[in-house]
């Protein structure tokens, strides 16, 4: 095995191109700090034309593995390609997009390389010793753990929409077609059914007006919809409305969608820790609740103790007037 100092460079991988661009954003910062190259591994079938986009977003070098066997995602061929590339080139840091597929690749890769992997990092930095310092939420959102990896490569997975994309004008980079042997898949996908998603993914909404147990009937979401529309956002809900009342199939919270909108309006949501963990990244949080003791108020920027059935329509009216005037 090479000495630790022989590991050099920051690498990124995701099977999701958009997430790869976000990883390049953070990757550039880390690579600059370490004065090393930023390398993207681009894998799939007919993906070569994506290389220039990766360079514009910060990659200095790209390894392309373009193969028909990578058309459908299977963990074995993807893992084997990454293992070989990492063993040949020895990067010190590897950031992997934290999708459900990305996480299984990361785990298998880290095991084959006998190294660690810190999942779902929301903060990444380089310490004075040049180590990657990784932070993530643990204990059901009750705590943030800060961790380092004693073995190289140091692997972290990064969820979507945590880091910003960067874009550089007229940037140059090197593109290398990698020569690797792909392992065959051990499973067979016999059917794929797309999940019919909500109009816009709630993670991408700038404004979310979210309802909780304080909303008495499903039809009452109309008033939340109205406010969301005025704000150019969309509605969301807490877990009990999905799990207990079965009004919805999804929810916002640690176990559901984790969101970071500019504005989060919590209507009749008590604010259990798991819900709060899912909205922590919001820029401004407004909480409207009848119960002055509701824990949601502890984490709100604007606290409104009142009846959502009165406050929300009034807020819609007030905003409509203000926005018309501007």
């Amino acid at each position, binding site marked *: 095995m090479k000495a630790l100092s022989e590991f050099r460079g920051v690498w990124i991988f995701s099977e999701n191109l958009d997430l790869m661009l976000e990883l390049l954003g953070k990757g550039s910062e880390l690579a600059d700090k370490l004065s090393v190259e930023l390398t993207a591994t681009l894998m799939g079938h007919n993906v070569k034309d994506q290389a220039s986009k990766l360079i514009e977003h910060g990659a200095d070098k790209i390894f392309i593995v373009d193969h028909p066997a990578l058309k459908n995602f299977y*963990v074995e061929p993807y893992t084997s390609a990454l293992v070989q590339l990492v063993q040949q080139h020895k990067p010190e840091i590897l950031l992997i997009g934290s*999708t*459900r*597929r990305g*996480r*299984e690749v*990361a*785990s*298998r890769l*880290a*095991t084959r390389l*006998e*190294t*660690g*992997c*810190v999942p*779902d990092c929301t903060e990444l930095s380089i310490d004075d010793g040049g180590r990657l310092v990784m932070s993530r*939420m*643990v*204990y*059901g959102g*009750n*705590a943030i753990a800060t*961790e*380092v*990896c004693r*073995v190289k490569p140091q692997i972290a997975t990064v969820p979507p929409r945590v880091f910003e994309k960067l874009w550089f004008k007229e940037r140059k980079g090197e593109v290398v077609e990698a020569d690797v042997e792909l392992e065959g898949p*051990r*499973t067979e*996908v*016999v059917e794929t*059914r*797309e*999940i019919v*998603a909500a109009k816009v993914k709630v993670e991408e909404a700038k*404004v979310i007006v979210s309802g909780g147990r304080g909303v008495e009937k499903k039809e009452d979401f109309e008033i939340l919809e109205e406010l969301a529309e005025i704000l150019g956002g969309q509605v969301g809900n807490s877990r009990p409305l999905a799990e207990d009342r079965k009004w919805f199939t999804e929810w916002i919270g640690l176990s559901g969608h984790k969101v970071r909108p*500019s*504005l989060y309006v919590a209507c009749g949501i008590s604010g259990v*820790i798991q819900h*709060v963990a899912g909205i*922590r990244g919001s820029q401004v949080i*407004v909480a409207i609740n009848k119960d002055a003791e509701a824990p949601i108020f*502890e*984490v*709100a*920027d*604007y*606290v*409104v*103790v*009142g*009846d959502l059935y009165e*406050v929300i329509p*009034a*807020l819609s*009216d*007030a*905003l409509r007037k*203000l*926005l018309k005037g501007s």
Partner: protein
Amino acid sequence: MPTIIVCLKQAVDVTELKVDSATQRLITADAPRKISDFDKNALEEAVKLKEKLGGEVIIVTVGPEDAKMILREALAIGADKAHLLSDPSFEHSDTLAISYILAEGIKKLGNFDLILCGEASIDSYSGQVGPRLAERLGLPQITYVRALSLDGDTVVAERSLEDCHETVKAKTPALLTVTKEINEPRIPSLMAIMKASKKEITIWRAEDLEVAKARVGKSGSAIQILEVLAPKMERKRIVVKAETAKGVAEKLAKALVKEGVVGR
């Protein structure tokens, strides 16, 4: 008839945690423990398969001696045997080391058809032990399974991904990780609890497993935890008050416009 291994974690009950207000450090040492939620779904699914197809359900856990408590519960739910891999040298193992210990324990158990794990644990939520174990044992893996069936040497599972559901086939032996959607775990009856007290729990130490000392515990772990702190949530907590709802709404609307978070 299938032999199904279920990996269970004795996890910290995250709803019962306290924070040291002076240091913001989380107090986990004396927090109550339980079977990690998704692992319980894995166990339930294994017991259901056994009820349908016959065979045997074997629990494997890495943990301290007091993890026997959760093993008793697992036996009451319907597992036949439990193996506790416990040794002081295993303490502070990360997923790299845990998957190694589990793999050595499972090799010692002999042949099996399926390994079921939860998608992740409720406390550390890394979701790595399942895939890492599959890698170490050279098994096909299917993660995030929401429904499954076993027919002879073929397992068919429906996985839940971000944008789609996949139906996936694999030959056994295979490792699957399950989500909460897959079932509603049963609560064991008093009779089942009494019966379970007669079932056997085997403890295997480091020497029984012939694990390399350098590969377990702190020395065998790649990840070093620097600190675990309660998250800072610095919010303004401005109380918006007025005589009427209209008054409150107007004040709030103005404040939000000023924040620059309103308007498209």
